[in-house]
């Protein structure tokens, strides 16, 4: 009797989890399995449409990928670019969140509306508008700054900088709103005590607010990392698919160019697997950090 009850209780959680697991299995595990499988095959348009038989290539796609200097260059560019985006987004988001707590209702409302507007703009619309603003022939920015027909997308760094501005513009509101909510939750007496002790604004942020906001900051940081690492739309639209001679390629756009523009589905899948592993590592770090802070998982 008791054995049956024990066994029953062992199975019950799984029974409740089953619907979610089925959905996850279908929508997540199966595609990832296919992604991995294709990355080990020779699979281009000719194999898809039956012109040639599909053959097993083992690690061939990975050898090709890792042997391609462009891949390493793109990987490096992606990491550096994502890091710059994350830092800039966090810095701006936190600064404006602090500003929000210090201004009156009307400017606060205006700042909130502006931020929410940027947040709500679809990435493709935002990118198109930014490119237009910086257009060498018709863009208002060059007119205002008196730069003549300076092309912002010609130089590698200036093109990356332009994309960075757009990325920061559309992702700082998330950081700002989250951090603002966190600051509001800090008891007023703690801050009051700090200022009574004669702490400067910077000191209050560093020694009081930042430690109390740590869980929130970790969440927004990891999310920004994941999001900025996967950046696609902004680069694709603003640098016309990767820039002059591919100078502005990031991993996601590179995978797209390989998989779809030139129909090398298997090579594109191999890039996808590499990205998956990198992001998985980042996610594991994220989960560990959360666990260490004693948050329920």
């Amino acid at each position, binding site marked *: 009797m008791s054995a049956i009850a024990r066994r029953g209780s062992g199975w019950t959680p799984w029974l409740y989890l089953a619907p979610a697991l089925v959905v996850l299995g279908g929508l997540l595990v199966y595609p990832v399995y*296919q992604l991995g499988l294709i990355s080990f095959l020779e699979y281009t348009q000719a194999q*898809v449409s039956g012109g040639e038989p599909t053959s097993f290539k083992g690690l061939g796609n990975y050898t090709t990928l890792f042997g391609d200097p462009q891949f390493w260059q793109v990987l490096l560019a992606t990491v550096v670019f994502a890091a710059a985006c994350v830092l800039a987004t966090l810095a701006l988001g936190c600064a404006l969140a602090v500003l929000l707590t210090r201004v009156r209702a009307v400017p606060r409302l205006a700042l909130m509306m502006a931020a929410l507007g940027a947040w709500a703009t679809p990435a493709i619309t935002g990118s198109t508008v930014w490119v237009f603003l910086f257009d060498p022939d018709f863009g208002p920015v060059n007119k205002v700054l008196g730069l003549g027909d300076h092309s912002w997308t*010609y130089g590698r760094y200036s093109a990356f900088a332009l994309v960075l501005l757009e990325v920061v513009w559309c992702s700082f509101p998330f950081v700002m709103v989250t951090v603002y909510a966190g600051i509001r939750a800090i008891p007023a007496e703690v801050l009051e005590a700090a200022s009574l002790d004669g702490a400067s604004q910077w000191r209050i942020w560093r020694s009081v607010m930042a430690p109390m906001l740590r869980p929130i900051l970790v969440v927004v940081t990891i999310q920004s990392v994941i999001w900025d690492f996967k950046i696609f739309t902004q680069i694709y639209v603003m640098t016309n698919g990767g820039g002059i001679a591919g100078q502005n390629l990031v991993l996601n756009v590179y995978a797209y160019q390989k998989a779809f523009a030139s129909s090398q589905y298997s090579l594109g899948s191999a890039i996808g697997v590499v990205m998956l592993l990198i992001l998985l590592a980042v996610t594991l770090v994220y989960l560990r950090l959360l666990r260490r802070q004693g948050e329920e998982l």
Partner: protein
Amino acid sequence: MKFSARIAAPAAALVLAGLTATACAPQTSDNSAKKDEKSGTLRVWLFQEVGNAPKQKVVDRAVDAFRAQHKDAEVEIEYIPVETRAQKIKAAFNDPESAPDLIEYGNTDTAGYVKDGGLADVTEEFGAWAEAKDTDPAAKQSVSVGGKVYGAPFFVGVRALYYRTDVFEELGLKPPKSQAELVTAAKKIRKAKPELYGLAVGGAYTYGAMPFIWANGGELAEESGGTYTSAIDSPAARKGIKAYTSLFGPDNCPAAKCAEMGGNDTVTAFASGRAGMAIGGDFSHAAVEAGKVKGKYAVVPLPGVKAGEIAPAFAGGNNLGVLKSSSHRTLAVDLMKQLAGKKAQGELFDAMGFLPTYTDVRESAAKKEPFVEPFIETLAAGAKAAPASPGWAQIDSSLVLPTMFQEIVSGRKDVAAASGDAAKKMNDAFGAAG
């Protein structure tokens, strides 16, 4: 735009997994024809041109003529957008059940589509077709792979030099007779009128650059025994690359703006009056006529290296082909002959200005419309096709040549290094294609 923390990780993985969306399982579709029915509905995909109505009329007449001979057959024509044709045609190969029987396709795609197993071999029917004898050799080559014919040429497109008659007159210039004169004229225009590009060139304008390589005796690739090897790094080809890339700079077309430009951008620059010269196709005529420079321009063949020579142009254009998966092969081939026949091509020229692929039809077209003269002259001087290897489609879509030109004009690599790297990438693609 942002997901909550809990779902961010799985969502990230999902997006990656979504990369396989079009090939959601490593499946392979069977494109072999099961039957050859003599009645039923034929489905046809043609390209949707800018201002498609006249083309539609010509096609409808040809279809009526076809139906008069085949009372049991229905024909369903669909005009597909040019920008998404690659995806649509790939999808048709992936799903033979809903694929059309006859398609229009760009002639640089022939070898790739044949390798994909999408196009039917019509060598016999083409050989037995009386009208096909007058097809010009370059056009015939554009439907042939490995000695077999995979369709019928529909029209050819070729590029020549557009120049501003008013600017030339003002500066006392004559239409250039050699490449050296072309470069001099371009720089003179830029110097006298700094708001104009002398000759509008583009780092991504491969078809505008090819004549420079060919005129200097270079080749894109060389064939021996069915396999191709890149020749883009040969001394002759490098000379051509050097000539083309020397046109990027403050004295003609500043690299900061011109490195990014493609063919359409250069034609747009010319049409809107921002360039003294441009390399444009017979198909660009309408766009230029619609621009600011209407009535102030003329066209001559692009000059070769020696005075009086014509630089070999790229023989572009479209073909018609029967899909391998078609269950109405005989009917589809008949319809293809009707649409790509002399009568329909002659009418298509009148309606759209597309150059016929038959030498005799083309000559009579030139008599009717003097505008096409320089283009026909260019074709007669010997236009060249892209390498007929399936690897070419990949070289084209992975932007090997634009990357090379952009690396050179942006000063990142010299001609030798950039062409060497491009040759390596081309050979990889040719090698993978077999």
